């Protein structure tokens, strides 16, 4: 059981199969969905996709970090980070599917 990496192309293909728009338009719509989500997050909005999860933006304060190589102290500037919380539905979905065929733990 080898892991695959799913990309935009797979998502566009799924939209193409499911909705029956042209391949080009399907790809443009996938992009448009990601863009709208990114825009909302950039405005500082939370994005809630029911039964999938919530993307939210968290403000981090300034703190002192350290260059691990030189041990030198460097200030880490305040910044905004994106946090994704999977919904219980998604967590359940993944666990039901992966719990049975456990082929060694890979972390």
């Amino acid at each position, binding site marked *: 059981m080898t892991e695959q990496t799913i*990309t935009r192309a797979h998502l566009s293909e*799924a939209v193409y199969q499911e909705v029956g*728009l042209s391949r080009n338009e399907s790809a443009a719509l996938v992009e*448009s969905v990601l863009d709208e989500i990114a825009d909302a997050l950039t405005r500082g909005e939370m994005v809630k996709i*029911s039964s999938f999860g919530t993307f939210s933006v968290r403000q981090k304060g300034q703190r002192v970090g350290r260059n691990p190589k030189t041990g030198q102290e460097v200030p880490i500037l305040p910044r905004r*980070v994106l946090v994704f919380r999977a919904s219980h539905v998604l967590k359940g979905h*993944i666990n039901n599917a992966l719990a049975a065929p456990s082929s060694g733990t890979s972390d």
Partner: protein
Amino acid sequence: MTKSELILRLAELNPHLFQRDVERIVSTIFDEVAKALARGDRVELRGFGAFSVKRRAQRTGRNPRTGEAVDVAAKAIPYFKTGKQLRDRLNGEETPETADDKA
């Protein structure tokens, strides 16, 4: 923004599509991501971020109130790592591709 607001917004941008098609497009995208994760696959959306599944081994936990040992079963948790371009955008650094003006 909720999923239904996202659908409304996309319907506005695509007046030639039926709203039910827009709903199917949005649902298909998230369903595909969920299905991929359930297979243990990784979903990589350059510039946006990557979804993957992290496995947690079975362990012995403790009831914090009673101190009693309890078995916690192995589980898998979905994980999202923000893409570089989106991370930069959140912090007001436009990447060349989308930068318009530095005003």
